[in-house]
């Protein structure tokens, strides 16, 4: 690199010498030579300051890059990557795993495992979702026509390649209906849940995350009725809260179910706070009878088979359970938060 100001060229030479002799190479960034150059700036004529300042910064970047060059030929002795410990390390200081009591599984992983366990016991397969998908699976296959206002409720992230960060685990519905369609020919239902990560283009606050988890459920067989949906979810949630709970549905709208509902359950004792009407019921999830167009899109005859689907947020369940006040803790990576879980 060439510098216009001779003062800087001189400084570069002297820094090179300093660097050679330094033991802790990173100390070069704190060299008085650099500091001195910065302190020169205010003394200059105003018209020259900008030019000089730019050069000093350029110099600092150059010097910083030296550190990268030496990154590997560092002062550290080479290591034998195949050995279990370093040379001369006394037995008591050899690497070992940390104390088990410090360890933890993320509360979301633990929750998804707990939910999956209930699903297995009720006869549901458990599947993962994709984290990058296309418009067809996210919308079109779910009976969302292009430019339909129903899309307004899903603030989706898009990539510059036109791909989509799925805003719901329903993005897997079409694939799983197709995958398990042979079940129907054998007289078995299609029954699966999909617990995984989804994304919404939403500003962060204590109750809103742009990255969160849902678990989707689908069930398709012959003669599946609304009452089966209510009973299944009621059983699922009773098992979840370890208490026999009443459930009720209220009309709602989703393009991929017809009719669509919101399901509320009787508030479990463990989450009871007061005794008002609002305290009696807990609105938990959206659900409905799978729209015939969605079945048809997966090659299933909607006159012969019917089914239901639901989607439920996961963080809220955990937040209620532990009385966690801020959804942002989940992805914060804070040990203070994580180590409270086992």
């Amino acid at each position, binding site marked *: 690199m060439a510098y216009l100001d001779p003062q800087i060229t001189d400084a570069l030479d002297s820094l090179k010498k300093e660097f050679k002799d330094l033991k802790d190479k990173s100390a070069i960034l704190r060299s008085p030579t650099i500091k001195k150059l910065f302190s020169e700036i205010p003394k200059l004529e105003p018209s020259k300051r900008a030019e000089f300042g730019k050069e000093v910064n350029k110099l600092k970047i150059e010097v910083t890059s030296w*550190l*990268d060059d*030496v*990154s*590997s*030929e560092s002062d*550290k002795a*080479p*290591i*034998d990557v*195949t*050995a*279990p*410990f*370093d040379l*001369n*390390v006394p037995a008591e*200081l050899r*690497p070992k*795993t*940390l104390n*088990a009591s410090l*360890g933890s599984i*993320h509360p*979301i992983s633990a929750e998804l495992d707990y939910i999956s366990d209930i699903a297995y016991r009720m*006869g*549901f*397969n*458990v599947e993962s979702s*994709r*984290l990058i998908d296309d418009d067809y699976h996210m919308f079109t296959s779910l009976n969302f026509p292009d*430019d339909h*206002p129903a899309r307004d*409720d899903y603030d989706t*992230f*898009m*990539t*510059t390649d036109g*791909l989509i*960060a799925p805003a719901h685990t329903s993005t897997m519905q079409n694939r799983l209906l197709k995958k398990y369609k042979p079940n129907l020919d054998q007289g078995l*239902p299609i029954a699966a849940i999909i617990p995984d990560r989804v*994304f919404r*283009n939403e500003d962060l606050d204590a109750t809103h995350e742009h*990255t969160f988890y849902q678990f989707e459920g689908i*069930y398709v067989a012959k003669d*599946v*009725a*609304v*009452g*089966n949906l*209510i009973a*299944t979810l009621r059983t699922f949630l009773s098992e979840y809260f370890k208490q026999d709970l009443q459930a009720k*549905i*209220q*009309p709602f709208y989703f393009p991929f179910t017809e009719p669509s*509902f919101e399901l509320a359950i009787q508030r479990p004792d463990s989450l009871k706070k007061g005794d008002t009407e609002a305290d009696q019921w807990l609105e938990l999830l959206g659900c409905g*009878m799978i729209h*015939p167009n969605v079945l048809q899109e997966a090659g299933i005859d909607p006159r012969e088979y019917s089914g239901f689907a639901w989607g439920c947020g996961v963080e809220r369940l955990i937040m209620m359970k532990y009385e966690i006040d801020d959804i942002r803790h989940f992805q914060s*990576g804070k*040990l203070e938060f994580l180590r409270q879980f086992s």
Partner: protein
Amino acid sequence: MKFSINWAQKYSNVDLKAISPDQLIASIGEQLGAVEEVEDLAQKYKDVYIVKLVRVVKHPDSDKLSLCLIDDAKQVKNVKRNADGLVQIVCGAPNVKVGMLAAWIPPGAIVPSTFSGKPLVLEAKKLRGKTSHGMLASPKELDLSDEHEGILEVPAKNKQVKAGALFGSAYGLDDLVIDLENKMFTHRPDCFGMLGVARELAGINNQQFESPDWYTATGQKIASGFDSKNDIPSEVPRFTLQVVKGIEVKPSSQEIQNSLIAVGSKPINNIVDLTNYYMHLTAQPTHAFDYDKVKKLCAGKVSIFPRLAKTGEKLQLLTGKTIELTDKDIVIATDKQPIALAGIMGGKATEVDSTTKNIIIECANFNMYTIRRSSMHHGLFTDAVTRFNKGQSSLQNAVVLSKLTQAIVEDAGGKAADGYDSNPEMLADHWPAIKVNSDFVNSRLGSDISATEMASLLQNVEFSVAVKEKSLAVSPPYWRTDISIVEDIVEEIGRLYGYSKLPVELPSRLIRPVVKNSELQFKQDLRRILSAAGANEVLSYSFVSEKLLTNCGQDPSEAYKLSNALSPQLQYYRMSLTPSLLSRVHQNIKAGYSKFVIYEINKTHLKSHGVDSEGLPIEMEMFSLVYGSDSKQHPAKAGSAYYQAKAYLDHIAQKLGTSFHYQKLDKKPAYQVASPFDWQRSALVTDHNSGNTLGMIGEFNRSTARNLKLPENCSGFEINYKQLMESVGSLNRYLALAKFPSTTKDITIEVPLDYCYGLLAGYVEHVIEQLAAKQPLRISSQLIDIFHKKSAKSKNITIRITMSNKDKTLTSDQATAISEQISKYLSDNIQKTDS
């Protein structure tokens, strides 16, 4: 969608006021849709009184303030009054005058405009030395409009409006306003009008609703003679116009104003208010243009018509904002220029104002998808958009235009003149009836409802239904554009019948175990192993910043980039997990955690990994772990951080019944996953058995460490857990228990300083196997020490051999012989590899 009970009551034969608010709200929630908010206007205005201004004088210490004495017929208690029983108010409004009626918010009352937010409770307050007991309210403070230049002048229109009357009752604001979630009605164009919701309320109360006659009279003929055309019927299914001449623009009637105020629509003038009134009533938006202003914008004869805009054309909207149009926008235009953004907002140049004498009323229907696209493109979200993008019925156009014209003539005077209708012959009954069997409906609902009962539920909301035994032929009314398939009929019947009455039953199930998802099980196994080894699982965002990528030596052009990221912090799909974990190290050290191991199991995406059979990016299933410790917790004698990460990987291998091979690198690997690692202090991890590459382990680049403020002692690994899963259980380590006493011998071998321990370990394993194959021996080995004397060119590796004979006790001589055999084998082989 705000729904006013008072307003709906005018059109409903069901006595809505007789139903308790709680019950009404509950039944809406159960049988119509989610209630977002309930506004009890009676509560909002309960403390506001109409008062008469008895005396008004200038405030002695202010040019702008007045001292007013007001008469409230002594309705308000606990307020300071003068000898005549009047209350003093200090008021800054320019329009205060003796004898006028005004609205008074006394001390202790909530200012209505703050009612639903953070309530402001008034108190008696001194203004320039004079006490004001509450305030005289402007329309803005009363939440009636944005007007705040002066106080509200209450017209004494009838006997009820007098000093001491409750403001809310006098203004008809003793209303219950229910805000229904718009999302609920994405498929219900009719429910964006009072009529639609009122009809549903009748239906769920099992009563027959009757729409007003004018609303069902779809055969209405619109006058002709106005010069217009419709060249884009796919974008504008119907376009109707009506000219009204000689009108008077003035404030609309109190009744119209009150209705609009109740649903949060600010009154403007009689013409605009009436168009809004009929939109809120029927869900059909309309627009009024000033005829004379339009005329000035026409080159030839007065004419307006819909067309697609030309890209680059400009239009100033009612709000004053000028937008640049594209050829995807529909506009209403004269022969010279666009004058309104169709279905979204009118233009400034043709706005109805107080001088308007003649108007053109437009009532049309537009392609819902085009309207939504334009609305999104221009960021304009109006009441009209909300209604048009749900797909209104074109049959409504002539109906509403006729009624609105009539209402305008009644209120504003004038005479209906020329008109235009693009589809004068449009008829209601051109849709075939939907045929559905009651057994089908019952099978989907799990119910047992008779065909006649089904018919009556539908008829209550004005469907026409022909029943023949179990077969129903259902014709939805013209406004129900959402009903097209049998499942729609199932929904209507279920909802109107009441979901809570449906029988609840679990599906029956075969006794057959579900196959567990092995990948998910494996992840959970891995988590258990790691948490039992003191590590903490982290979940972090799938999106990262460009800065984090470059700090970790990764190439952002390889990453999938979001086009609508929330912030630069979340711009790219991550290509590996390690950068996310590294970005959490410093914050935790700073928070006082001096030694920790964090890990994450998640998916990563990288352009160069290509696409799968669906043409979508292959998702990499990765597992990354990072060890971090500040220097106090990591004594120099403990050696390099690399071995801390390795201890974890070896631990995992041991728990999973496999073993890994660590391969030294001779140059930086060209993988994004490897980028954060300092290749000279890292190794490639392969599965010992299959030789498959699993990932990287090592310490991190100096620059990465510096940029992310990593501690000196930091290391980690990132491996593909799907590959890892395949290697699980490949190793059977079981060694039969010793039956005879065992003997130990330590063997110390001198090897060159750069000699790989792994090589030696391989020889040890091999020679032990050989010996055990020949003799009934049980031999195991353990590394005891690796010692390097300062400045020596070699190092000593000490291995402890534990041996026993399976059939008898091993003698000391035999043990020595075995140990010598091992020792010799090792020396021979080391020399071989060395030379």
